[in-house]
């Protein structure tokens, strides 16, 4: 019991993910700044922002649905945390694993977007509602490519469990080279999931202020922001587990260090991607996802299917 509580709240649960999430936000912002030839924030900036926001008053709009409005940040955070415990960090075994946890993780990672939608929609502000509608529209565009690109290696490994996938690829490291296209697609789709440039359409600052989060303030906003940071870590960990399963058999310490390197590498790629492009329009984003990314993901899936047939 004590062990389980420790796992949930401290490591690798809430505290660890929160700390890692804030660090990830710092690294992302710092890299973004350095790439723009700026200095960037000091290391404690995300934490300072969090503390500052937590100390502020929560303002709930008069016409908002109070329950939904207040509940959504918590739902977002819990679903992300729940997803995290199924993702293997060191070694090929996650803390909890069962047959088919991959599907559960994928769905749990869809929940935050839904909470952004609900939180924004029930704020009853025009900006929030437009932002909410946009995040839902965007969800339908990136979710399919993301699922396809992650299911392709799963099918190759012949398992629906993340730990199983890691296990398979650490014994067949050559097979992962085959999934490079899938990796690129997954990174692009993850940008959509995390609502980062070029897919930060739902919270496009210059158009709709902060999108779904326009009406949020104080603790609730702090929680939402923490949830987004955690989502960054969990999303990167998921991609690291599926697409970069190297060196899983060097013991916990080396494995953990390697895990951090992998996640930071993916965060670095995300920072780079958001530095070099402009924000797309929602119609362009959907066109891009359905006409370029989704067919590519489908081809990757087919290629894996054929490879599997040939291999067996």
């Amino acid at each position: 019991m004590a062990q389980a509580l420790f796992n949930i709240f401290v490591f690798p649960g809430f505290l660890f993910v929160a700390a890692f999430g804030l660090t990830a936000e710092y690294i992302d912002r710092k890299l973004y700044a350095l790439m723009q030839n700026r200095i960037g924030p000091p290391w404690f900036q995300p934490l300072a922002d969090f503390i500052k926001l937590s100390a502020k008053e929560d303002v709930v709009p008069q016409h908002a649905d109070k329950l939904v409005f207040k509940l959504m940040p918590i739902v977002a955070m819990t679903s992300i945390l729940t997803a995290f415990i199924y993702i293997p960090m060191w070694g090929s075994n996650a803390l909890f694993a069962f047959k088919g946890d991959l599907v559960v993780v994928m769905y749990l990672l869809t929940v935050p977007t839904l909470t952004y939608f609900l939180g924004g929609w029930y704020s009853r502000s025009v900006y929030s509602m437009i932002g909410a509608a946009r995040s839902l529209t965007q969800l339908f565009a990136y979710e399919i490519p993301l699922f396809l690109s992650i299911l392709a290696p799963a099918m190759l490994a012949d398992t629906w469990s993340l730990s199983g996938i890691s296990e398979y690829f650490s014994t067949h490291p050559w097979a992962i080279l085959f999934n490079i296209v899938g990796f690129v697609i997954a990174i692009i789709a993850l940008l959509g999931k995390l609502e980062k440039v070029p897919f930060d359409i739902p919270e496009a600052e210059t158009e709709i202020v902060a999108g779904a989060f326009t009406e949020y303030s104080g603790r609730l906003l702090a929680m939402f922001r923490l949830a987004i940071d955690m989502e960054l870590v969990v999303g990167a960990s998921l991609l690291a587990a599926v697409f970069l399963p190297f060196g899983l058999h060097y013991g916990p310490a080396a494995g953990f260090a390697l895990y951090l390197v992998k996640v930071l590498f993916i965060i670095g790629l995300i920072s780079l991607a958001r530095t070099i492009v402009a924000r797309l329009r929602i119609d362009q984003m959907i066109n891009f996802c359905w006409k370029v990314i989704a067919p590519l993901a489908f081809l990757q899936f087919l290629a894996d299917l054929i490879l599997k047939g040939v291999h067996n």
Partner: protein
Amino acid sequence: MFRPGKMTSQVLRSLFKKPVTSLYPFVKTPMPKNFRGKLRFYQERCIGCKMCMRDCPSAAITIKPVGDKKFIAEIDLARCLYCAQCVDTCPKKALEATPDFELAQLEHGKLKVVFGDTSPVSTKTETK
């Protein structure tokens, strides 16, 4: 012709370059030679013609006599535009712009500055 991520190489090079942000309060850049900052008043040169008062766009400068052919300049730093028109107008070059621009004060009263020796006795000192 179309290249996605055209800026990639520059962006990656900046990653290893020194940031261009100037660390202002810690590292101060020198002001250009003819910068128009806080004024300096040479009391002994002032003849009290009040041309500067007439030309000041914001009525920030007041010349007051304190003794026999001795004048002080009162400048409201909050009103001053730092255009240095008074410096150009002054026929005796009794006013000069300095590179001093850090003039923020917590109290409004401190923004009213009196230049020059207020005692009516004639002295030949130069004040800043």
